[in-house]
């Protein structure tokens, strides 16, 4: 709290303090309420006060079997998957300094889905342990291709457009597979591709643990680097972080987080977009280190919340959770991104009126001009192509005139 008080005294950030205080209770309450919903609603309905008895009964009663063998693993899977996706989304967004750099936009999700769906359609029988590896291979292919072609974070919109192109190509490959599949396979694949948590058992949950053991320490190690990357490439390099290498490492961590989840329950879409923006909206002044756990928590909340209507909305038919997260996540995330940006701009207004629009404008421009003399053998190539305003997507207002005038000449 003293740190918060300092910051409040320095920048006049009182309005965000209120939101920050509400974040932990809100997460806990939402998680508790929707966990009870997930465990007790459905057929058979198990009232909340009988849940404990049902679990203790174990497999002697019907309710006990349903709760322990179906609903508990499903809830756990939703929690773990959501946390992984939320954390991965934050890692990607921070590493690329791009609020829209989500797995869906970078081709990571489509790649992973392709890796899982291909053996299903081609009816190759593979051991279950290989599936996450295939998903990881696909995800790394998609994400790596995007980043390489786009020149590693050349500018936010270029990366996103490249990602959209790569994702579209991967989707086309997926659709070829789907057209080849027969009707029964097709249902299965379509459901899987939308991200569904139905009929997942304890085996699926336990299959995730080894990957988490790899990913969590890596996340802890990379969180401080992320907050340094936020300062901009030049400042990060001045502080001793190799920006491009750190970016690739962040992508690798995101792939390790996303791919196993995708292998088990399909690409639950746009959780990695909504969760980081939620955590940022509640606590705009904190850094990446503070956002990371909250982003994971919000990811878990989002998936658990979305899974309840997915299971119950059209009762006998299960709708995929991924469709719900896409429906709710995209509009909510965009709204949060908008309001968050406006709040930040308003808050920065009185403190530094010149720098309100563009984060870090002055020093970076001069730095990129001077960088060619600095012996950055690996980075100078990137810097020359890099435009000075890759801090955020809102800073490209004048240039469109140039293209159209070129067209007119033609």
């Amino acid at each position, binding site marked *: 709290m003293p740190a918060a008080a300092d910051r409040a005294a320095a920048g006049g950030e009182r309005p965000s303090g209120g939101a920050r205080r509400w974040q932990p209770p809100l997460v806990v309450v939402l998680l508790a309420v929707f966990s009870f919903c997930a465990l007790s609603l459905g057929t058979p309905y198990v009232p909340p006060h009988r849940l404990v008895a049902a679990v203790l009964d174990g497999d002697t009663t019907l309710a006990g079997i349903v709760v322990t063998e179906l609903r508990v693993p499903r809830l756990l899977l939703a929690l773990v998957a959501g946390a992984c996706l939320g954390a991965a989304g934050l890692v990607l967004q921070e590493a690329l300094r791009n609020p829209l750099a989500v797995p869906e936009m970078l081709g990571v999700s489509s790649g992973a889905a392709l890796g899982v769906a291909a053996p299903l359609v081609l009816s190759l029988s593979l051991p279950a342990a290989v599936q996450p590896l295939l998903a990881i291979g696909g995800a790394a292919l998609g994400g790596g291709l995007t980043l390489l072609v786009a020149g590693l974070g050349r500018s936010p*919109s270029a990366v996103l457009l490249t990602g959209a192109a790569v994702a*579209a190509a991967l989707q086309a490959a997926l659709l070829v597979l789907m057209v080849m599949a027969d009707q029964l396979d097709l249902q299965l694949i379509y459901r899987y591709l939308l991200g569904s948590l139905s009929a997942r058992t304890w085996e699926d949950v336990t299959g995730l643990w080894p990957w988490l053991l790899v990913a969590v320490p890596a996340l802890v190690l990379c969180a401080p680097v992320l907050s340094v990357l936020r300062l901009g490439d030049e400042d990060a390099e001045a502080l001793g972080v190799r920006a491009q290498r750190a970016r690739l490492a962040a992508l690798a961590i995101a792939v390790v987080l996303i791919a196993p989840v995708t292998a088990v329950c399909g690409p639950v879409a746009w959780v990695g977009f909504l969760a980081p923006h939620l955590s940022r909206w509640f606590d705009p002044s904190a850094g990446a280190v503070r956002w990371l756990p909250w982003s994971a928590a919000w990811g878990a909340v989002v998936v658990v919340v979305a899974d309840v209507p997915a299971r119950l909305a059209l009762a006998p038919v299960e709708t995929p959770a991924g469709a719900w997260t896409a429906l709710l996540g995209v509009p909510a995330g965009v709204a949060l991104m908008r309001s968050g940006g406006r709040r930040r701009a308003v808050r920065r207004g009185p403190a530094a009126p010149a720098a309100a629009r563009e984060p870090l404008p002055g020093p970076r421009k001069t730095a990129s001009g001077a960088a060619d003399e600095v012996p950055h053998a690996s980075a100078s190539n990137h810097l020359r192509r890099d435009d000075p305003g890759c801090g955020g997507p809102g800073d490209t207002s004048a240039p469109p005139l140039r293209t159209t005038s070129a067209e007119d000449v033609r």
Partner: protein
Amino acid sequence: MTRRFTALAALAVVCAGVEVVAGRGMSPGVVWDVLNGGGDATERHILFQLRLPRLLVALGAGACLAVAGLVLQSALRNPLAGPEVTGVTPGAVLGAVTATALGLAGWDSPLAVVLAACAGGCAGAALLWLLAGRGRGDPAQTAVHGVLVSAVLGGITAMVLLVEPGELGSVVQWLVGTTEGRVWEHWHLLWPWALVWVVAAWLLAGPLTLLRCGDDIALAAGLAARRARTLALLCAVALTAGAVAAVGALGFVGLLVPHLAVAVFGADLRRSLPGAALVGAVVVCGADAAAQLSSRLLATALDSGRLTLPVGALTACLGAALLLVVVRRTPSRTF
């Protein structure tokens, strides 16, 4: 200019010829035989009831999508505004799928599908306008928001499909865009609609060329810019809806063919609009021929009869590669 048109027309004829002979089941010699009046009943059926309508549908849909893309890019002054990235195509797919699932429209009432696709396309475009209304100045931002809109609309489409799983098999082909199994009904559905709106686009070519120069110049020349833009957008949505209802969401044709057309025919829409229609027809027809040829080769190589490559997958891959080139070649300042 006339020479370029002639060359393109020749190319279109060549593509059409390849498309007619490319399919499975008949060798080129037999096709020639049938065209000269020979061949047995089955061969005649294959050529006249299956291949010819398929060829015509491919040509028509390609022309529609290309014109729609060029109109959109000119009206919005955004080089990245294709129907795919402005939410029009996903919206049209959603409209068509919803209408089919609700039983409002089937192949016995083909016009209803087109109208539903049209309404869906308008809804998609409106959604994008709501989402990116303020950031309209920046082309790449609008395109990125368009991807978000597509995600939302795709989610709703998925919901509809899972409520009505019986439709899934036929609709998946629609989602990717294919000319597989298109017959004369599809062509009779497509051509009157396409003709009306292509003529409308042609009438708008002059105003659109002015709009390309910017609102100030257009206003100074005495053009009601807003009204012209609204009409142009309506025209583009209608053309896209017609194409989607006939062949499904062919990836990236509407985004990238206009760039080709402008590169070949210049920025004067009175010339490049018909040019774009021609280029679009050539591209889709050629892609379809290539898809048929390659699926024939793949089927013999892998020895599996059910392997078919939908043309939409081919155009999407091709378009993705071209889009990468466009993004990389545009000076980084524009993005």
